[in-house]
Structures are given as C-alpha cells and as structure tokens.
C-alpha cells in the first residue's frame, strides 16, 4: 500500500515540476474551432469548452494542488505543533485556553468555515491557504498536545529540567521529537484533505480564479457539459481521486510502519 501511494505521489510531483516541458501545448492556449473535442492521439484527454488541451491543464493544475497542500500542511503543522506542545507541556490555564479553542474549531464543519472565510476575505489562492490553515492546525495541535502530556513525565525530560534547561529547549529537543512520527502521518493525510478542500473551494468559484488551471475549476467548467462532453469532468475527477488516494495510502502505510500494533 505504501508503495502504491509513494508511486502515485511521486508521479504527481514529477508531473507538477516537469509538466510544461512534457506537453507541447500551452495550458491556456485556446483553439475555439476544436472546443469540446473528444480524446484523440494528438490530445489524449481531449479539449475543453475553450479548446484548451486538458492534459496540459491537468499537469499545471497538479502544481496548484500540491502547492496548496504543501503550504497548508507546513503552516498548519507548524502552528499546531507550537500550540499543542505549549498546551501539553505547560498545562494549566494555557492548556485550557488552547484546548477550548481546539474544541470549538473541531465542532465546526471545516469546509463550511473555510467557505465563510474565503467569502469574507475574497476568493484567491492565498485566502484559500489561509482559510484552510485556520482549521488545519487543530488536528496537529491535538495530536502533539497528547504526546507532550505523555512526554512531560519521561525521566529524560525531568533530567533536562534538573540540568537547568529552559522550557523552550526541553520542548524543542525532548518533547516535540516524540511527536514527529505521528505528525508526519497526519501531514501526509492532511495533504489529501487540503487537495480536496482546494478543489472544492475552486469548484465553488472561491479558490483559484480562471484562467489559472486548477482541478476544481476544471470540474466546475465541465459541469455544464456533463452529458455532451464527459471527458471535461472525468479526467480532472480521476486526477483528484487518484492523488488523494495516493496520499491516503502513503499516510496509512506510514502509520502502519511507525506503529505496527495499529495495523488492521
């Protein structure tokens, strides 16, 4: 499973970095005469409603998906790890404050909150990342808090305190590293979540704005041609499903590697 996931993710990364070199067509070049043309040897995935090559657009869309995923995962894991370790290590009032914030955000349907935020801030790629981070850090914080609560009692943490180490050093050197394996798994699964969320927001017109190709906007554009030209939606849909599946496989596989007891 972990191999399948790795292969899918590697292909996506490869496509995103080399995409423009791989296809002879400009993803935004329009040939209106050939609009909605079905897949052919020249255009393996066909052409869209403006006569643009769907394969080229998918490859540049992969870049958006991965970039959004990466940005959301790195920013939210950083915030989540910081707040989670502070809550878990110090406990008391700080913990109560952070834990209640986590509880409140967990009670919200994430995607609705993101939609509301983007609606207020205005649709753009940056705001999508921002909105997804606002809800994204919660998972990491909860995870790291639990680990920090446990690690606080370890004798080597006590030893570091006895040696005179300050809280920042103890958290960074002795507490956080115990959470890294779990965070890596969470981040891999978080990539899948962020990719779906970006596609959903773009589909609703709240994310990446045309003409920049994104898998979500491509789905949206194909919606009105669902019956006369299904290749407009089938290929972006398959791309989203495959990449998300890849990240989920990778995450699940990593989890099994790290904690063999949890294997099902």
């Amino acid at each position, binding site marked *: 499973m972990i191999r399948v996931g790795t292969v899918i993710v590697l292909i996506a990364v490869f496509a995103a970095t080399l995409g423009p070199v791989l296809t002879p067509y400009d993803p935004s070049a329009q040939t209106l005469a050939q609009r909605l043309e079905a897949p052919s040897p020249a255009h393996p995935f066909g052409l869209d409603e403006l006569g643009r090559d769907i394969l080229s657009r998918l490859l540049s869309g992969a870049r958006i998906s991965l970039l959004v995923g990466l940005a959301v995962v790195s920013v939210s894991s950083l915030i989540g790890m910081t707040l989670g370790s502070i809550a878990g290590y110090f406990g008391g009032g700080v913990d109560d404050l952070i834990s209640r914030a986590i509880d409140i955000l967990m009670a919200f349907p994430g995607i609705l909150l993101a939609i509301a935020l983007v609606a207020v801030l205005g649709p753009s790629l940056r705001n999508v990342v921002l909105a997804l981070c606002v809800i994204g850090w919660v998972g990491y914080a909860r995870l790291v808090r639990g680990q920090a609560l446990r690690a606080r009692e370890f004798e*080597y943490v006590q*030893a570091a305190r*006895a*040696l*005179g180490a300050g809280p920042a*050093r103890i958290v960074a050197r002795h507490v956080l590293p115990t959470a890294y394996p779990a965070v890596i798994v969470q981040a891999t699964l978080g990539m899948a979540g962020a990719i779906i969320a970006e596609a959903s927001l773009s589909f609703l017109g709240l994310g990446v704005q045309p003409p920049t190709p994104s898998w979500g906007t491509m789905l949206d554009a194909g919606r009105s041609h669902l019956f006369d030209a299904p290749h407009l939606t089938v290929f972006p849909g398959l791309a989203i499903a495959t990449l998300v599946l890849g990240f989920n496989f990778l995450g699940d596989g990593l989890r099994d590697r790290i904690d063999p007891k949890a294997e099902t």
Partner: protein
Amino acid sequence: MPLLEVRHLVKEFSRRRGIFGATSVVKAVDDVSFTVERGETFGLVGESGSGKTTTGRCILRLIEPSSGDVVFDGKDVLTLSRGELRRARRDMQIVFQDPYSSLNPRMRVGDIVEEPLVIHRLGSKAERRARVRELFDLVGLNPDHLERHPHEFSGGQRQRIGLARALALNPSFIIADEPVSALDVSVQAQVVNLLMDLQQRLTLTYLFIAHDLRLVEHICSRVAVMYLGKIVEMGETARLFATPQHPYTRALLSAIPVPDPDAPRQRIVLDPNSFNRAAPLREIAAGHYAAT
C-alpha cells in the same frame, strides 16, 4: 554547617473525584526534616509510596513542595528565582532509577552528556567534546562510543551515561534515586562501587534513595526510614540496623533476605495499629531519632 538541610517539608497532592466530588488531599511528604553533612552518604529508605522519591524531587524543585524549607549550601532553594535556580542546579544533580527512560532515545550519548554543558554555555565545542570524553573515561565507558545511541548500551552502561551527565557540571551533591534497583545484581555491585569510588575522588555528597536495605547498610553513613510520608526513624546506619526502635523499621529489617536457606529467621509482620502514627520524632540516643 550541613550541606543540605530539609525542614518541615510537605508535599500535598489534591485530587478531585468527578466534577462535583469532594477534593481529597494526599500528603505524599508529611513534615519531613533531616540534614545531610558534606561528604557523607545519607540513605532514605522505605517501601514504594512512602514518599522518598517525592522528597528527592522536592529538594531539586522538580516538584514544587507545598511548604517547608530546603537549605542547600546556605541558600534557601525554595525561594530562588528561575535564574538563581538554574545556577543552583549546577551544584545539585540527580541520577534516576530507570536507565532506559532517563536517556532520550533519539539523541547520541555524546550529545546527552554534553547537554548540561551546552545549557550552561560552558566552553567551546571542542572543549565540551574533550570534557565529554573525560567524563566517559571517568565513569568507565569507552570514549570512542560517543556517536552511539542509548539503545546500543546495556542497563549498567546506560546508568553510567546518566551518571556522566549528572557529573558534567561538577556538582557537589547528587541525589541517587534508586540508581541500581533496575539493574541485575551482578551489575548493581559495579555501579555501586563506581558511585563510592567517585565519591572519594570528587568529594561528592549523596542522598541515596533506596529500598534495598543491604545496599544502604553497605554504603550509607546515616539513614532515615520513611513510612507513609513521614520519617519514622533516623540515625547512624550501624546503630539503626543493630537496635531498631520503631516497629516499622523492625518489620522492614526482618524482611531482608538471608543468603542461607536453612538459617532460622522470623519475619515480623507490621501491625499498623501497634503504634501511634502521629508520634513526633524524638532523640532516643545521641543522633538516633525514632517516632515512638
């Protein structure tokens, strides 16, 4: 002047049952007082749950005591500011019971022993490395193994690493919290001998927390017996072992295994109602105190 003086130390843990339940208070350490003279090994013995480990951690302020005084080398440890406490910790260190959980498994052993020097910003990188090699040598480890991880060492070797870390800052006082009870008997002797050897060479003072009475008899000059958070008897080791006064001490001493299966022995079973638990410590002979 004694190196360490503990006066009326109390540590209470409060726990509430449920949201509306009553708060119950457990006195883990209940009015404990003793002194440790410079250069001696003072034993603190008792069964698990008697409060001996909590007492040790309160002295280092790894746990904040509820009340009392801890005077170390003329300074009241409990009133020190954070910065002062940091400096004070260079002089008082701890060796833990479990050699497995007391070393960070993700760090190389050389970095573990170097960490105290890094924390207190002592020396250049090269000087610190040289000091770490010196410390490895001091505790009988091969200085060429600095790059290894803790899991590559045996329990006894790990305890030596923990000791090297504690000695890195040149402390004068070490709390040894059951330092050998997690080790095999054959390895115990080696580590105990190392502790005694280091005490001679570095003029260290030990607070030795243990439940193995034979070990305490072997290495401690004075000993205090704790029971349910209180010291019930305290005095010179030889005298206390020869003429135990408190019923708990007698029961504890009668439980020491005798290395002779045919030897006649009588186990004394402690009757908790046979003595007054609130009785204060009083001097029954010169330097020998008992709560009877």
